[in-house]
């Protein structure tokens, strides 16, 4: 990760911006419905190790004087899924990178909730945007 940040520094023009956009190191909340009708069904259990490693890499390049810290924002991003198949596909994809548990319990709970109420499955989680300004 530090190497990728150093490469980004190299290809940036002087005073260029590095935008680090990624989920906050938090477990995502899974629910049914959109907007105000959203109801929590369960919370994922994910490995946050990679997120913390990325945070450490950013601190390292800041300390090395490659970048200065700029604007930072945090906002909620939703992933809406039409069907249980979409949710399972998303879990499988995430499972290769960050999910620790199989989440069979969550799939069962969602199936029960969907039987009682037809709605889209919505995963919610905070996302961070951080701007780093190139120095040197």
């Amino acid at each position, binding site marked *: *990760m530090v*190497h*990728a940040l150093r490469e980004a520094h190299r290809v940036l023009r002087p005073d260029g911006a590095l935008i680090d956009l990624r*989920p906050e190191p938090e477990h995502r909340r899974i629910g049914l419905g959109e907007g105000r009708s959203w109801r929590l069904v369960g919370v994922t259990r994910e490995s946050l190790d990679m997120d913390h490693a990325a945070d450490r*890499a950013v601190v390292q390049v800041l300390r090395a004087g490659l970048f200065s810290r700029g604007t930072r924002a945090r906002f*909620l991003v939703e992933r809406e899924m039409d069907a249980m198949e979409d949710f399972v596909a*998303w879990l499988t994809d995430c499972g290769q990178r960050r999910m620790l548990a199989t989440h069979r319990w969550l799939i069962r709970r969602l199936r029960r909730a969907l039987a009682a109420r037809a709605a889209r499955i919505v995963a919610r989680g905070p996302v961070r945007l951080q701007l780093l300004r190139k120095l040197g």
Partner: protein
Amino acid sequence: MAITVDPQERELRALERVGRWRGRRILEIGCGDGRLTLRLARLGARVLAIDPDAGQVRAARAALPRRYAARIQYRVGSGERLPYHAREFDAVVFAWAL
């Protein structure tokens, strides 16, 4: 079946707030299927978008709307080794990729 990420476009609004994008040359690292790439192009940026997954890059190319074709280039590549000149880009975006 369909998955929609960030239907409220909060990412786009956050990107709009942090700077000017029109005409800027952007390197996007970890573009995946090009979801964020299209949003950067909508802001007026010229984007070179890379991802190590050749399948994702193929999918992104196939889904590239004609109106953005002059502003977006997709390539297979990794952030760890960038085959580009020094000082070539106005901004580098790590799209859920760091």
